[in-house]
């Protein structure tokens, strides 16, 4: 009897080529590259419809069943849980872009996908991957060379007018949340100007966002300072003048020992005096704080009822902030140092606020701390659905990043695919004069660049081929 193995090799099927001759399970290198490319392309096709102002949104339900409706590439990739190793590389590239620039992540993925698609054609033509890589490298070096020549405008943060600056911000915002860019651009501009350091630098994390459901985007506002999404504990709810702020990382309560302890009383006098002594101690402390000139107490922990009683008696304001992160932000805004033990702060440990006020917005209570020459700005965003709110938050983040980049390098190039088309044209010319096999890869690279204007037209509902021509 012949073994089935030999049978199968005997039944050599010329149609399946080389693979027909080999043991089952074998894979051919060429095949592997192609499959990697296909995986990356699949991811990129999934993403590229979200490019640009008219990019379509994705509805994502992540593994915690949280819902996102977004066209932000970085968010989509983060929630997608990409498994394929080759596709993961694309995701990493996008993540790096986000960390570096905070924007244009979709461009990275779409363009990489298109490059791979072109590679596929080149491979079918018979080009070896190493030749393709060489060609792409030449093209990419050429682009770095060409880009500075395409700069259309030099915007300097120091001198530029608000119109000029918002002109740069608008396309960034429009591509994130079209329709609200007109509202957001001036707000982000204001916020960035508020937090700009004397050396004209902006730290993106200095612009905070508070999201409130209800009303519409146009009701969003910018507040120079800190906004807490809760009311105050004390009876005093509004201080309209410049006041000192003291931040405690610990709770405002009678300190208790960590180890279990029992208060031992020996005489009747001890018993009578016990509560009184606790009260006097708390009063002394609050009094001390009040006498140091502090008007607003902020705490990261609990406020005991006794403490609150004296806080009210000394007409202080008390705000509780649960998150350590938020507390640090507030310190940043007011310039206060967070104290870890109770007691009156020294003058340089105090922060300053120009006004502190509890407000009702959209059925939610907010405490607004306005600060002088603030190092922190808060955007209060409004929208009627939470998915829009999340989108707006990302748009603000991208906008602030764009501004930050503008601070570093004021050169701008035309958007909306114009730069890509110009580069593509130049690369085509380069390809025409390149000898050797490189020219095919360079040409493919040039062609791949066209994906940007093509997609923009596609997603907006126009005829892409017509616009491309």
């Amino acid at each position, binding site marked *: 009897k012949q073994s089935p193995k030999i049978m199968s090799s005997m039944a050599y099927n010329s149609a399946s080529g080389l693979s027909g001759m080999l043991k089952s399970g074998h894979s051919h290198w060429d095949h592997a590259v192609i499959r990697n490319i296909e995986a990356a392309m699949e991811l990129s096709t999934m993403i590229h419809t979200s490019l640009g102002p008219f990019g379509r949104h994705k*509805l994502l339900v992540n593994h915690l069943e949280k819902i996102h409706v977004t066209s932000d590439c970085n968010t989509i990739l983060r929630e997608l849980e990409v498994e394929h190793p080759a596709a993961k590389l694309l995701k990493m590239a996008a993540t790096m872009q986000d960390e570096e620039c905070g924007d244009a992540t979709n461009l990275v993925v779409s363009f990489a996908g298109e490059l791979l698609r072109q590679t596929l054609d080149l491979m079918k033509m018979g080009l070896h991957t190493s030749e393709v890589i060489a060609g792409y490298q030449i093209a990419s070096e050429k682009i770095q060379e060409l880009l500075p020549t395409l700069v259309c405008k030099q915007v300097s943060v120091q001198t530029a007018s608000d119109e000029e600056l918002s002109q740069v911000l608008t396309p960034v915002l429009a591509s994130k949340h079209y329709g609200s860019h007109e509202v957001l651009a001036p707000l982000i501009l204001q916020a960035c100007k508020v937090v700009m350091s004397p050396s004209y630098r902006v730290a993106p994390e200095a612009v905070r966002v508070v999201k409130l459901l209800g009303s519409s985007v146009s009701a969003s506002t910018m507040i120079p300072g800190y906004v807490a999404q809760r009311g105050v504990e004390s009876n005093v709810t509004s201080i309209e003048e410049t006041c000192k702020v003291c931040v405690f990382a610990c709770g405002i309560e009678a300190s208790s020992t960590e180890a279990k302890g029992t208060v031992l009383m*020996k005489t009747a006098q001890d018993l009578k005096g016990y509560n009184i002594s606790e009260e006097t101690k708390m009063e002394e402390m609050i009094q001390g704080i009040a006498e140091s000139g502090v008007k607003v107490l902020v705490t990261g922990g609990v406020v005991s009822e006794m403490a609150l*009683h004296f806080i009210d008696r000394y007409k202080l304001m008390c705000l509780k902030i649960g998150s350590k992160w938020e507390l640090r932000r507030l310190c940043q805004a007011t310039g206060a140092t967070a104290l870890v033990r109770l007691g009156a702060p020294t003058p340089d440990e105090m922060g300053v606020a120009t006004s502190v006020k509890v407000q009702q917005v*959209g059925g939610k209570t907010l405490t607004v701390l306005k600060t002088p020459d603030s190092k922190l700005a808060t955007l209060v965003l409004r929208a009627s659905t939470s998915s829009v709110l999340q989108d707006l938050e990302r748009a603000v983040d991208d906008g602030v990043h764009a501004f930050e980049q503008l601070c570093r390098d004021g050169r701008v190039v035309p958007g909306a695919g114009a730069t890509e088309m110009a580069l593509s044209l130049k690369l085509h010319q380069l390809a025409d004069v390149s000898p050797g096999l490189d020219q095919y890869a360079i040409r493919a690279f040039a062609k791949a660049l066209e994906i940007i204007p093509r997609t923009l037209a596609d997603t907006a509902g126009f005829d892409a081929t017509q616009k491309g021509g």
Partner: protein
Amino acid sequence: HRFNSIQHYQAISKMNPGGLGMRPGIILLREGTDTSQGKPQLISNINACQAVSDAVRTTLGPRGMDKLVFDGRNVTISNDGATIMKLLEIAHPAAKTLVDISLSQDAEVGDGTTSVVLLAGEILKQLKPFVEEGVHPQTIMRNVRSAGKLAVKKVQDLAVPFDMKSQEGNEMLLKCASTALNSKLIASHQDLFSPMIVTAVKALYDANALDDIMDLVAIKQVPGGDVRQSFLVQGVAFKKTFSYAGFEQMTKKFTNPKILLLNVELELKSEKENAEVRITDPDQYQSIVDAEWQVIYDKLDACVKSGANIVLSKLPIGDLATQYFADRGLFCAGRVEDGDLKRVAKATGGAVQTTTNGLYEGILGTCGLFEEKRMGEERFNVFTECPMALTSTLVLRGGSEQFIAESERSIHDALMVVKRCLQTQAVVAGGGAVELEVSTYLREHALTIEGKGQLIVGAYAKALEIVPRQLCDNAGFDSTDILSALRRKHTQDADGKWYGVDIANGSICDTFEEGVWEPSDNKCNSFAAATEAACVILSIDETIISPASQDPGAQATGMMGGGQAPMGNMMGEALDQVNAHKGGSRSGNLGNGVRYMKGRGGA
């Protein structure tokens, strides 16, 4: 290079050992991830939204029906859109958008929560044919957005301003409150409630404290009695608290009393839990006992010495203290709810004290009149003629708990409507009049648009008609007849702009004349929100659902809320049915995205 690729490939192909010739599917995303895209996906999202809006549509208007929602523990009977949407535990990712707008309408305006969902659902329904025919969703969205903007602007143009100061202003508010109550369970008692609501809100308006409405106006549910026994106290009222012996000997009526507010327990008990007394000499025993009594007597003494006539405490006031105060002609009440105590503090100008040491005149509150009143079977402590005349308390009576709960929601809505009215000081006519007028305007405007936009704006205009149509349907009228009469009135008659559905007679009437008024902000917000929601749904081109992680921590975060609500199931089935009919699904399992109608965490 090459080697790596091969390894990668093998790693991947392990998952699908198809072998030679058979191309294993590329596994791009985590196993179990569901993706669906394109037109069918969009249509199925629209269907889900429609199913949700169908679920609440019958509650619209004065003749709307109520929903009974059973969530496994409690029964809620309501026709408040936001309440129903909240209780339905809708888990469909796209349909959740509708829950969002309903809640945002509730937070922002407080009323009109049903109509906003209805409107969003109808806009999507009218646009569905365009999606099916292959019009690019971006084209649709662009036009819907512009139509939405025009609609809001038109409402603002139509709004009739009124002067608060005049007598008419008051009438206006009454009518707005009545309109809001009209569609609720207590519609037949609006003559009783409307003036109460207006009085309560106006007190706040005069003091410029409208924002604190939720803190300052309390609604107390006291089951029993009759609805007509409900009453408003301009001041603070709360039910008599638990009392000890000696209570009945107290004086229960004071004029201009001084009120002491405490957060102190006035009872004989150990001072501190971790305190321990150790005595070496048995003779000291009595002195310790005496000292304990001394501590409480000192506290009581301090209260009396402060000059207060009334002592209220958040914590219990024991029988010793009750007797002590009764002997000295004081009134006391312990275990007063926190909110009530704070309201008393606000109204009387007092401050809540956590210790009885260092009491002084300044922390005492005062009011014109305090008395214990008997209403039906219940007794109330009532503080009136307070110096800060801001707070009011509405005491609701009624037969069943559900009835009172629904009454409270209705009153809340009406309060918010009156508040809105005072803030914007402009009204439009209800009864579907303003929707039809805007619809007529958009229809005319559509004719000036070239291209596809004309049809889309036209569809939006048609969608607005759902409000009067549904009003008729719910009341059992022939909606086609009435709607055509209304359309004629609005297009041909110059004075016909306020014509809406006449619910009483089953015909049409000038609703503005009839006094069916709503704050214009209400309508602006609901048009804007519905438009935004429709755009969000239309903008989705792909739904990707990752498999839920099995991490128990995820459940603790309470993403999906509780459990096996039968209504949830019903909704799920309804949605499934809708989808089965429309054939929107791409991959049979969960492609249409309609799943998880049941929360996970509950079991």
